């Protein structure tokens, strides 16, 4: 039944998805707690024209993607981290522009080159060693940053007004978070693509958020859930010949819906019975 995992390319995909789960498990929780989910989606989509450009001009895809993502992080992202009014409509605007420019570039400018579908939805089964190395780098950075900057990220998100008095108002930690999210989004591109990046980066964290009350269990739970979702999606896509990125996204979304429904049912039950949970 699990002979899929006998194939070297499936094994490499499994390693990729497991390493990405570590990055998603730590960064995903910060994305959700700091209200940066839409930013995370935007930064992944913004990386798409970078991918096309890199492909057409013949330099490393992840470099092109990260260049554009970084630009996005430093402009729109900084507004989002400060919870400025209007950053979400700006994110939406840039997201649409990035997708449109990417598609135009891919179809008209670099005709022979990029396969738009692969760039948008990823190709987990054809990741190479460089993709895995990038994922490992991001996972290590995410863990280190969580350990060192985590308390500041938590304090600023809890009470932005008090941050300056607490000595946590320096914008550097927030900037580091934005750049890390951009890097993580780029590292998920090869696996699940620009449009499905949030399936790994946001959805598992949002799911586990509903059943945890502290950062550490939330982060551990998200890592485990992302790993399980990725593994299940990989296996299922191999068995059914469906695209792996989309399969992982469907499973992640389905689990989110199940947990949300379950929680709603429990809340309704306790309300009607009048007993505390």
């Amino acid at each position, binding site marked *: 039944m699990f002979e899929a995992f006998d194939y070297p390319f499936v094994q490499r995909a499994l390693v990729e998805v497991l390493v990405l789960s570590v990055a998603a498990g730590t960064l995903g929780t910060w994305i959700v707690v700091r209200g940066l989910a839409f930013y995370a989606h935007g930064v992944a989509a913004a990386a798409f024209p970078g991918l096309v450009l890199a492909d057409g001009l013949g330099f490393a895809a992840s470099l092109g993607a990260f260049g554009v993502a970084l630009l996005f992080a430093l402009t729109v992202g900084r507004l989002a981290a400060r919870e400025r009014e209007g950053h979400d409509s700006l994110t939406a605007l840039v997201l649409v522009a990035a997708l449109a420019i990417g598609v135009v570039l891919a179809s008209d400018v670099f005709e022979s080159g990029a396969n738009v579908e692969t760039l948008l939805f990823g190709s987990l089964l054809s990741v190479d060693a460089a993709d895995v190395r990038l994922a490992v780098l991001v996972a290590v950075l995410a863990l280190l940053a969580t350990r060192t900057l985590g*308390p500041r990220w938590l304090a600023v998100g809890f009470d932005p007004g008090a941050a300056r*008095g607490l*000595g946590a108002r320096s914008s550097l930690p927030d900037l580091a978070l934005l750049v890390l999210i951009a890097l993580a989004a780029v590292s998920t591109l090869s696996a699940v693509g620009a449009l499905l990046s949030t399936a790994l980066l946001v959805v598992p964290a949002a799911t586990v958020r509903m059943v945890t009350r502290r950062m550490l269990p939330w982060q551990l739970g998200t890592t485990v859930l992302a790993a399980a979702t990725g593994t299940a999606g990989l296996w299922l896509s191999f068995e059914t010949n469906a695209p792996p990125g989309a399969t992982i996204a469907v499973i992640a979304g389905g689990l989110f819906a199940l947990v949300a429904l379950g929680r709603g049912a429990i809340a309704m039950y306790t309300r009607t019975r009048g007993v505390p949970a």
Partner: protein
Amino acid sequence: MSDVRPLVRAERLAVGYGAAPVLSDVSFALPPGERIGVLGPNGGGKTTLFRALLGELRPLAGTLDLAARCGTVPQTERSRLDYPVSALDVALMGAIAGRPWWKHPGRRERAAARDALARVGLAELADRSFGELSGGQRQRVLVARALVQDARIVLLDEPFTGLDAVSIRRLEDLLDELAGEGRGVLIATHDVEQARAWDRVLCLNRRQIAFGPPAETLSLDVLAATYGGSIVTLSGVAGEGERLALLPPHHHDHEH
């Protein structure tokens, strides 16, 4: 008192969000060990003044000098009740400035946070989720955060709103203790009667109306100018003596 350097000194301070100030002509000083009640209607500038003190807004005119960084006890927004932190986690946030950026809170910081929670009477609830605590307990957790921070200036934004009598009493005692340790305490409040117990009052209504000891400062004229309405005197309610009641401006315009 005049030889002690004040913790806060404002001179003809004007602050606002754009070019036009929403609060102007503010001149007051907060010496160590004093509690100042900040009175004023909604939109009168209490929160704007606090944001200037916290460094979120820069003065548009005049000067604002702080001898120390502020600790703050903000009102708890609903969205914050869901935040994944315990009371101890919140108190620990006060220890950020005291350690290098790469360091995680250590045993010493945890001990300080637990001590601060014990001081505000929440030792047993240290591991409870912040959002599960009562309103009064949440305010005291935030006071504990200011204690860990060792803030010499403590700002409290409407800290008594929605608290029961026991919680109000506990918080008032805690503020007295903070002032007793030489900290300066600024409390935004709606309750004029409560502010009478404090050292000074600062009355704001888009500009400074008055500043001084409550007994001399809180005249009918000052209250009327502060709240922009009419004041009536209610005499002899159940032996309590005279009490003031405030009528909203243009109350006669209401439809009946």
